[in-house]
C-alpha cells in the first residue's frame, strides 16, 4: 500500500502547510509530520501530507553503491575484454 511520491517544497505557509512541486504540478500539503522541512527539501508526499524528508544524495549514493558491486565490475571487465 501507500503511494508516496517525491515533491519539492517551494514555499512554506501558515499552520504547517507548504506548497510543493511535483514535476510542474503544485499542491498544498501539510508538513505536520516533518515540521523541520524547509524550502528546497524533497519530501515524500502521501495523501496530502509530507511523510518524510528524502535525501537526493542518499539516492545517488545507493545507485553508486550498486554500480560498484562485484557483478558490475565483472560485466565491465567482460566488456573490456570483448573490445
Amino acid at each position, binding site marked *: *500500500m*501507500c503511494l508516496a511520491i517525491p515533491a519539492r517544497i517551494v514555499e512554506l505557509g501558515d499552520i504547517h502547510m507548504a506548497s510543493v512541486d511535483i514535476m510542474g504540478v503544485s499542491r498544498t500539503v501539510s508538513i505536520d509530520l516533518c515540521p523541520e522541512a524547509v524550502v528546497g527539501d524533497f519530501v515524500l508526499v502521501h495523501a496530502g501530507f509530507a511523510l*518524510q524528508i*528524502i535525501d537526493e544524495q542518499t*539516492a545517488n549514493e545507493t545507485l553508486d553503491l550498486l554500480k560498484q558491486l562485484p557483478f558490475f565490475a565483472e560485466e565491465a571487465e567482460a566488456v573490456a575484454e570483448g573490445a
Partner: protein
Amino acid sequence: MDLSGFRDPELARGLIDAIHGSDPGRPIKLMEVCGTHTVSIAKNGLRGVMPEWLTLLSGPGCPVCVTANHDIDTAIAISQVPDVIVTTFGDMMKVPGSYSSLTREKSEGRDIRIVYSPLDALELAKREPDKQVVFIAVGFETTVPLIAASIMRAQEAGIENFSIYCSHKTVPAALGALVNDPEVKVDAFILPGHVSTIIGMEPYRFLAEEYHVPGVIAGFEPIDMLQGIWMLVKQLKEGRAEIEIAYMRGVEPQGNPTALAMVEKVFEPVDADWRGIGVIPGTGLALREEYAAWDASKRFDLEIPEPKEIKGCQCGDVLRGIVLPFQCKLFGRGCTPEHPIGPCMVSSEGSCAAYYRYTDYGREEA
C-alpha cells in the same frame, strides 16, 4: 528529484544476474506485503525475469483488500444517516461489502465524495457546517499519522462536524500471524517501503530474531525492488536472517518519531478483523478516550446488518500466499475487474487485479 537512475535497464540487468547467481539450492518464496509493491512487480514485469527457484507471493498488503465486510457495511450505514457526507479515498468506492458498495450507495443518492487527502475532508466540514462530514479512515501505518494529524487539526480549529470511521491496520504483528500460520510457507519478506518510513525497522526485528525469517525494506522503483530481492536471496544463501533497508533514501532506521508520537497520542491498539484472515490481536487502532468525540461509530446510532461472506472467493488464501490469484476458481471466470467478486480483484492494487491487469496468467483459459 530525478529517479530515472532507479529505472536504469543496465543496472537492472546487473541486479537480475546477481539474483540468478545467488541460488541457495532450494526453492524460495518471497512475500511482499505492500500493494504498491504488488503493482510495481506486475507493472514492471519482474516475475518474468526471476529465476525458476524463486517465487514472488503477494501478501495482505492492500488495505482495501483486508478491510472486513463489517467495516464496509458500517461505512455504508453511515452514508445512510441523514445530513451526512461520507468522504473517502477513491480506493474504497468499489469494494463490495455484504450487500452493497459505496459506489452503489452513491448512485442511490447518498452524499459520498472522493477526496485526495483527509485535509480535503476537513475543509469540506468547514464549508458545510450544517452537515456531518465523516472520513472513512483505512490504511496502514503510512496513512495513520495523517489521520491523527487531521484530528488534531480539527480539535485545534474547533471543527465539530468532522469525524472518522477508523478501520486502520498495522503490519508487523500481521506478519507474525502469517509466520505462525502452518499453511503459509514464506522464506522471507519484502517489507513495505512507506509503512517503514513511519515505523522504521525495529518493529520487524522479531521476525529475524524469533523466527529466523529475513526481511528487507524496499522502495518502489524497479531498481529498488530488484535490490530488495537480491539482498533477501543473498541473506538466504548465506543463512543469515536480518532486517535490512534497501530503500535508504526514504526510510530512517528509527522511522519518523514525530509521526509516531502523533499516532501514539491519538490512537490506541485494538484487535482487528482482517478479511480472509480473521482477527489478529493488536493489529487495529481505535481513537483514544480523549478523542472519542471524533469517532463516527460513537457519534451516530447505526444499525449494521449481519455480515455475509462471499461464497467460493479465495481472497483469504490469496492474501496469505497459499494460492496464486489465477489458481482461484473464480479468477477470470466470473471474477474480473469489471465484475469483481472478491476485494483482491476490486482494488487496483489487489493481487488478483494486478495479475489480471498486467499479466497473461490465467487469462487464456478464462
